[in-house]
C-alpha cells in the first residue's frame, strides 16, 4: 500500500534519514520506533510531502509520489496526525472534522456562494456521514459544538484522529497518538486505532514511544536509530534484536 525505498534526507550536515526502506502492508498496523532524534518525524514529513528526500522514493498504491505536494498526496488518500496537535484552533470540533472532507466534497466557488442547491445537498450528506462514521465512532458527540481551545489534551488528540478519519483515508499516519496521555486515555486511543483498522480496513502507520502500545497493536515494526534503519520485523523479532536492545538500553558493559 505504502512503500518507502532507500530514503535519504539531510539538513545541511545532519543526516536525518539514511537509506530507510520498508513497506506498510494493506490493512495492517506498521509501527516506526526509535530513540529521540532517530528520524521518525522526519520520515513522516518525507512521506507526507513536507520534505523532499535527497534520494529514494515513496510509493503509494503502486504509484511514485515522491515529487507530489502534501495536498496532492492528501487527495490520493493519505491522512496524518501530528505529534503536537495541529487542529484549527479557531473552529469548533465539527468544523475541524468537516475539513477532513475537503478533497471528497466538490462544491466550487459559485455553488458555495449560492449554497442552496448542490453545495447544501453535499454538505448535509457529508454531515450525516461524519456524524456516524467519525463523531459517533469516536464517542465525541457531546463536544461537537465545542471550540477546540476548550478541550482537554486527550480529547484534542481524538478530534485530530477524527479529522483524519473524515478523509476516509487509505493510509492513516499517526505521529505519537498517545504521547502525554495517561493510562486510561492510552487504552482508549489504542481501542480506537484497532477499531479503525477493523472497521474500515485502513492501513495504519504509527510512530510511538509507548513500547507497550506498539508491541500490542503493531503487526510489523521498523526501528530507526540516527536515521538508519537498524531492524524490521514482527514485534517479537524486534524485541529480541541485539541492535535494538543496544539502541534503547546502551551497549552491555
Amino acid at each position, binding site marked *: 500500500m505504502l512503500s518507502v525505498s532507500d530514503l535519504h534526507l539531510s539538513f545541511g550536515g545532519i543526516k536525518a534519514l539514511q537509506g530507510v526502506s520498508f513497506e506498510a502492508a494493506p490493512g495492517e498496523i506498521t509501527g516506526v520506533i526509535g530513540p529521540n532524534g532517530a528520524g521518525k518525524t522526519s520520515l513522516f514529513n518525507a512521506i507526507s510531502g513536507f520534505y523532499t528526500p535527497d534520494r529514494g522514493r515513496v510509493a503509494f498504491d503502486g504509484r511514485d509520489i515522491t515529487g507530489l505536494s*502534501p*495536498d*496532492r498526496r492528501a487527495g490520493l488518500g493519505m491522512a496524518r496526525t501530528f505529534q503536537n496537535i495541529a487542529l484549527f484552533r479557531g473552529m469548533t470540533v465539527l468544523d475541524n472534522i468537516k*475539513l477532513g472532507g475537503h478533497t471528497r*466534497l466538490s462544491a466550487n466557488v459559485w455553488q*458555495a456562494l449560492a*449554497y442552496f442547491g448542490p*453545495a447544501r445537498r453535499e454538505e448535509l450528506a457529508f454531515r450525516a456521514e461524519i456524524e456516524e462514521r467519525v463523531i459517533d465512532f469516536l464517542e465525541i458527540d457531546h463536544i461537537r459544538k465545542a471550540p477546540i481551545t476548550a478541550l482537554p489534551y486527550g480529547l484534542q488528540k481524538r478530534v485530530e484522529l477524527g479529522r483524519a478519519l473524515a478523509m476516509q483515508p487509505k493510509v492513516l499516519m499517526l505521529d505519537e497518538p498517545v504521547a502525554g496521555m495517561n493510562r486510561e486515555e492510552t487504552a482508549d486511543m489504542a481501542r480506537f486505532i484497532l477499531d479503525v483498522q477493523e472497521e474500515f480496513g485502513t492501513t495504519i502507520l504509527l510512530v510511538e514511544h509507548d513500547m507497550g502500545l506498539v508491541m500490542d497493536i503493531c503487526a510489523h515494526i521498523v526501528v530507526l536509530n540516527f536515521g538508519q534503519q537498524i531492524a524490521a520485523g514482527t514485534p517479537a523479532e524486534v524485541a529480541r534484536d541485539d541492535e535494538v536492545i543496544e539502541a534503547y538500553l546502551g551497549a552491555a558493559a
Partner: protein
Amino acid sequence: MITGNLKASYAADEQVFDNRNKRAFLYAALLGLAALAGFADDYVILVACQMGILLIAVVGVNVVTGYTGLISLGHAAFVAVGAYTVTIFHEAFAGAIPEGLRALIAIPVAMAVSALVGIIVGLPSLRVKGLYLAVATLSANFIVIFLIEQEVFAPWTGGMVGIDTPAPDFLGWTLDTKREMFVLIAALGVLTLLAVQNLFRTRVGRAFIAIRDRDYSAEIMGISLLRTKLTSFAISAALCGLSGALFAYFYARILPEQFELALSLELVAAMIVGGMGRTMGPVFGVAVIVMVPEVIKSIFGVATGGEAGVAQLLAPLQEIAFGLLIVLFLLFEPLGLNHMADRALRALNRWPFAR
C-alpha cells in the same frame, strides 16, 4: 428564552438563523431597511448609502484578512479599479450597448477586472506573510493610484482631476436620486452578506479559515495553498470592485485621491472594530466608522456654532478617532463589536435566567 436544543435534523442544525431570536433580528433588520428606503430623510439616506458602499468593501477585506488571515492594506486599490472600470466601460460602450443594459454588464465586468487585479496583487501571499504581505499590498495600492494619475491614461481615467461618472440605468429604470441608489445598494449589501455567509458554511470557505488557523495542517487536508489563497484574494477584490462600482454610480465624480491609503486603513479599521472573521462584523464596524465623523461634526457644530475654521480640524480629528478606536478595540475587545452583540444575543436567549 430558548429552552434546550430541539433540532431534529442535520438540516435544522446547519441553519444560520437557528433560533427564533436570531430570526426576529433578521426580519427586524430587513424591515428597518425597507423603512429607511420609504421614510428616511435625505441626510439619513446619504449616510446609509455611504455605509452600504463601505460595507461591501469591508466584507471584501474581511474575506481575505479576517477569514484567510492574509493582511492587506491595499484594498482601496480594488475599489478604485471597480469604480474606474465602470466609468470607463460606460464611456467606451456608449454606442455599442443599449443604455438599459450597460450597468447590468458593467458591474460584473468591474468585479471581474478587480478579481483579476486581486489575483495579481495576491501572488506575493504565497511567499510572504504578516507584515511583509501588508507592505506588498500597500505598495500595490500606490501603484494602482499612480497608474490612474498618469497623463498617458488621462483620456480614460481623467488623471489627477478625476472623471465624471454615469448614472446607472437598469432596463429603463434610471437611478438618478439617492433614494433609488439606496435601494440598489441595500439589496446588493444584503446579497453580499448572504453570499459570504454561505461561502463559510461550505468547503471553499472552510479552507480559507483552515489556512488562517494553521497552514501546514490545511495542506495535509488536501487544501492547495496556491489556489485557495488566490481564490480568497479574487473573491475579496471582486467585492471591493462591486463597492467601487456603486461608489462610481453614487457620486457624480471620482478622484484618484479618494482611493488612497486612507481608504484602505478605513476598511481595515472598520473590520477590526466590527470583528474579524465574523459575518456581521463589517456591519457593526461600518456603522461606527461612518458615524464617527458625523458625530464629531455635530459636536463641533454645537460647540462652535458652525464656524468655517473648524472644518480644517475635522479631518485630523477623524484620523485620531479611528486610531483610538482601533487601539481600544484591540486592547479591550479584540473580537470586535460582533462579539459584544453575540454576548447580548446569548443573554437574551437565556433571559430571564442566567446572563
